[in-house]
C-alpha cells in the first residue's frame, strides 16, 4: 500500500477514521501500559494501512479491532507485562457473593473497575472489552476473536459476572470476593 500516493492514503483514512473512537476504547484497556494507548492506536492504523489492499471491506471496524488486539497481545508478550489473569474454568468458576450491590458498584471509581477488568481471564476480558466498552456486536466480536458466537455469549456473560463479583469484593472485601483469585 505504501507508495501509492495521496489517493490511496486518503481512501484509507476515509474508511478507517470513523472507527477511531472504538479503536481507542480497545487500546486504552488492551495496551500493556494504558499510557501507550495512543501509540497502540497509531500502530494499528499504520499496520492496517500497510495491508489495506488485502482488506476487502467486509467489516472495517472489526478488521481494525482484530489488528489492534493482535498488536496488544504481541506487545504484552514482548513486555512480559500481561495483566494478572484468573484461570478460566469451563463451569462454576463464578462464586457469587451474598449480594451484588449494583448501587455500590455504580459508585466505584474507574480505577477500581479497570483493575477488576484486568483480572478477568483473557478470553472473557476481550469479550467484555469489545462488547461493553467498545460497543461491538456479538457477531463482530465472534469475527474478531474467530470463535463461535455462542462462545462469545458465554464468555461475555461469565466475564460480566466475574467483574461484578470482583467489584462487589472491592466494595466489601470482608464478604464479597469469596476467594476469586
Amino acid at each position, binding site marked *: 500500500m505504501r507508495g501509492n*500516493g495521496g489517493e490511496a492514503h486518503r481512501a484509507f483514512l476515509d474508511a478507517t477514521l470513523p472507527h477511531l473512537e472504538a479503536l481507542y476504547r480497545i487500546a486504552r484497556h488492551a495496551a500493556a501500559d494504558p499510557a501507550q494507548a495512543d501509540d497502540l492506536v497509531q500502530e494499528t492504523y499504520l499496520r492496517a494501512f500497510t495491508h489495506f489492499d488485502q482488506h476487502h471491506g467486509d467489516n472495517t471496524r472489526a478488521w481494525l479491532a482484530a489488528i489492534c488486539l493482535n498488536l496488544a497481545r504481541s506487545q504484552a508478550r514482548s513486555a512480559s507485562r500481561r495483566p494478572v489473569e484468573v484461570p478460566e474454568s469451563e463451569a462454576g468458576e463464578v462464586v457469587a457473593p451474598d449480594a451484588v450491590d449494583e448501587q455500590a458498584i455504580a459508585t466505584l471509581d474507574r480505577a477500581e*473497575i479497570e483493575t477488576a477488568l484486568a483480572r478477568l481471564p483473557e478470553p472473557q476480558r476481550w469479550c467484555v472489552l469489545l462488547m461493553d*466498552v467498545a460497543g461491538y456486536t456479538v457477531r463482530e466480536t465472534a469475527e474478531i476473536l474467530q470463535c463461535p458466537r455462542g462462545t462469545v455469549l458465554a464468555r461475555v456473560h461469565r466475564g460480566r459476572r466475574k467483574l461484578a463479583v470482583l467489584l*462487589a469484593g472491592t466494595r466489601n472485601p470482608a464478604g464479597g470476593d469469596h476467594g476469586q483469585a
Partner: protein
Amino acid sequence: MDRHERSLAAFLAGELDERSAAEFDAHLLDCADCWRAVREDRAGRAAAARLRDAAPYDLADRVSMAVGLAARPRPARRRGRWLAAGALAVAAAVIGLVVLALPGRSADPPAITAVVAATQRIPVPTGQPIPPGTGPVAHGQGWTVRAGVGELRLQYYRLDGVDVLLAHADRPVGTPEDAQHAPPGDMPWTVDRDGITVYCPHDDVLVAAALPADRLVALAQRLPAN
C-alpha cells in the same frame, strides 16, 4: 457451558424468541441462582460501560499524519539506501516509531522530516480572514507527532497573511548537514527542503513555511514562546 447457562446467556443477549423469553422470565421468578446471574450480568455490563473513554482530541490528527508520512513515495535514487535500512525500519515500526518516510534528505533528523511533511499539508484556515500586518493567530488545533525517538508539538499560525508551522520538540532536534547558519558559527540555522524553509532558532524549536529564509526568520520572531 450447559444448556441452562446457554439459555441464560441467550436471554440476556435478547436472542430468545418471544415464547422462550416469556418462559425464561417466568423461570426467573422462582430461580434464585438465575436471578442472581442476571443481576451480576447487568452490574458487570454497567460497570464496563463506565470505561467508555473519548479518544484524545488530537489522536485523529496524529494518526492521519503518521499514515500520511508512511504513504509518501520515495525517490528512486534512494531506493537502495531504503532497502538496506528496511529491516531496521520494520523493527522501528513494531516498537512504535512513526516517522519512517524520508521526504527531505535521507540523512535529515526525523524532526526535520516531520516538520516538512506537516508544512506541505497546511490546511486552508477557516473563520475570519487575518489581514496583513496582524497575527500571529493559531489556526486548527495543535497536535503531537512522533519523530524518531522524540515527540513534536505542532501548531499552525497565520500572520501577515501567510501560514507557518511552529514545532516544539521534547529534545534537541539535530542539525542537517547542509544547514545554513546565520551568522556563521551561531546556533540559528535554516535549510531548504522541496521549497519549504525550515528555521531552527533554538535547538528544540523549528519554524517552517513555504517562504524565503530571510522572510521566515523575520516572521518567526513574532511567534509565541520563540
